């Protein structure tokens, strides 16, 4: 619970910094230090060093899964801050507020990952999403950003309503919000419980953008300022999935005979829609937005399959997908032309950046020896034992092959095309390149030795 307190404190600190009148560079450094502390404190807690114990088992229960996931999230968050914190200044004038909001979102992550009561799940999701509505609309001068924000808000609030109805029905059936008592001793679900379960399921499916609840995703990701899209599409989505898995594994796991098949169907639908629509996108940002839906389809396989493989897979997927996408977006923000053509011939002028981008794209496409491959492998392995698992796996494998097509279009532009006339590539700062290199190395390391991360789950 170190992270919760620290993130809240740092959020408040960042909030007050906005009126202190100190320079942006200092604000940025403070934010980066804060995120580093979040990461260290989580790792410390993983080693058994707890600074602050909330001790409210009826509300929050931190387990190793939550801690490993949180350290992945805060670690990725640190890299994200190091890479992209500068870009936030271009969004608007409320620099330090953006950091404050992101720190509050991290508080939400803790709740979403360690809730033992549906109330905490609800609060966690709201603490994550309300700042997101604001971050989406942070570029106030840009109509696209405004529009994305409003859409996200209306649809998000709508889905929250559905979730609350679900929670109410579950409460009616069980008389408690505790996730430990969601299913009665008999294990036979009542209609009321099932109804509530499904409504919560739909709402969470919305939050993680699983089809047919995914429609907001491309619009919002495309409209939001790119720095924040990077954050939303990665860490937020991963945290939401982790919460999804937590609820449906621990809470509703024994009822899986009723909902599991739907998770499988939605995963398949998501994979198909996400991949098929990503194929013909010209803008790399939009392509990544659609591909994030496709990746959500893969993560949904974890919810479908459950079990240890799903947990491990979710952690691995969270790490690999977040790292690669954060890296991609960080470079994309700096590109002059953000279409696929904008990357034409990058390899000739920036060979090292191109090689790093290649690692990210290969990982996203799930090519072996990158973390992306193993993450997909774990997810497929999780889905395999489930009912109709083989069929779902086959669809997923086919769709993974389709995804290669559009990721490789960017790779092809980078390596096999001549630079377009009049497009110059930005100069990347050495520090920026170093962080990107670290990310690429992490991706390869995780692709070779997933045990390096996953062993923390058990020891």
């Amino acid at each position, binding site marked *: 619970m170190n992270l919760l307190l620290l993130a809240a404190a740092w959020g408040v600190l960042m909030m007050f910094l906005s009126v202190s009148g100190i320079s942006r560079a200092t604000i940025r450094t403070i934010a980066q230090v804060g995120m580093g502390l979040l990461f260290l404190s989580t790792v410390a807690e993983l080693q058994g060093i707890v600074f602050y114990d909330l001790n409210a088992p009826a509300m*929050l229960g931190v387990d190793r899964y939550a801690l490993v996931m949180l350290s992945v999230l805060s670690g990725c968050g640190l890299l994200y801050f190091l890479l992209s914190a500068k870009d936030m200044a271009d969004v608007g004038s409320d620099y330090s507020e953006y950091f404050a909001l992101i720190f509050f979102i991290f508080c939400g992550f803790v709740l979403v990952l360690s809730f033992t009561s549906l109330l905490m799940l609800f609060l966690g999701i709201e603490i994550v999403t309300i700042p997101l509505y*604001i971050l989406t609309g942070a570029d106030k*001068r840009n109509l696209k950003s405004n529009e994305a924000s409003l859409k996200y808000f209306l649809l998000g609030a709508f889905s929250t309503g559905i979730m609350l109805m679900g929670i109410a029905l579950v409460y009616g059936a069980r008389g408690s919000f505790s996730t430990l008592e969601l299913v009665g001793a008999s294990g036979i679900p009542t209609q009321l419980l099932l109804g509530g379960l499904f409504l919560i399921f739909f709402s969470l499916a919305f939050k993680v953008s699983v089809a047919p609840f995914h429609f907001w995703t491309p619009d919002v990701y495309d409209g939001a300022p790119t720095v924040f899209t990077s954050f939303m599409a990665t860490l937020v989505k991963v945290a939401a999935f982790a919460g999804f898995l937590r609820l449906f594994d621990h809470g509703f796991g024994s009822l899986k005979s009723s909902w599991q098949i739907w998770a499988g169907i939605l995963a398949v639908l998501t994979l198909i829609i996400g991949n098929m629509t990503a194929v013909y996108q010209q803008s790399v940002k939009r392509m990544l937005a659609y591909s994030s839906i496709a990746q959500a389809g893969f993560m949904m396989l974890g919810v479908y399959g459950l079990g240890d493989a799903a947990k491990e897979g979710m952690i691995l997927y969270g790490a690999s997908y977040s790292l690669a996408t954060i890296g991609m977006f960080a470079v994309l923000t700096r590109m002059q032309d953000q279409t696929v053509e904008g990357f034409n011939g990058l390899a000739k002028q920036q060979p090292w950046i191109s090689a790093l981008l290649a690692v990210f794209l290969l990982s996203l496409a799930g090519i072996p020896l990158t973390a992306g491959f193993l993450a997909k492998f774990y997810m497929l392995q999780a889905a395999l034992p489930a009912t109709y698992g083989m069929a779902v796996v086959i669809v997923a494998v086919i769709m993974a092959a389709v995804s290669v097509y559009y990721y490789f279009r960017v790779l092809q532009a980078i390596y096999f095309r001549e630079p377009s006339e009049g497009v110059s590539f930005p100069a990347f700062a050495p520090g920026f390149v170093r962080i990107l290199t670290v990310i690429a190395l992490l991706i390869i390391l995780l692709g070779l030795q997933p045990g390096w991360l996953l062993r923390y789950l058990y020891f």
Partner: protein
Amino acid sequence: MNVTPYIFWFLSVLALFSALMMVTSRNPVYSVLWLIGTFFAISGHYILLNAQFLAVVNIIVYAGAIMVLFLFVIMLMNLNRETEPQKNRWLKFIGALAGGCLLLVLVAALKDAELKSQQAMVGGGSIGLIKVLGKELFTRYVVPFEISSLLFLSAMIGAAVIGKKENSQTLNS
């Protein structure tokens, strides 16, 4: 004579009618007023269920603060006329149909639920009183209570971020 069922039916009809009027009113101001009506009806239900605390909060927070805020925004935008362009009739029809179907499905699924013989305690019971709720809130529920402050903080920052006027208001779409 037990008047409770009559009050229940009266409040229910009032809530449903106001809700319907809220959804169908062309003029946004009427919609707000009808919604306030619904809230009052719901507060009436709370009182019927002896949830006094929530009844009061509902009136003060919802009907009082939130709806006034809505009204204020509508007035600010000068939307108090029947200017809203209407949706395509087919889309409206399909929307209503989808919502209706959902109601039908849920009701049909839940009507035979185990609740058939269950009763909600009307009138009696002390759990709706401030004393009981307050005690619970500051003991078992103190963690979420504290955490919801974070929600307000971020909402506050958010409103400031969004509401503040940007120095250079250049629009590009």
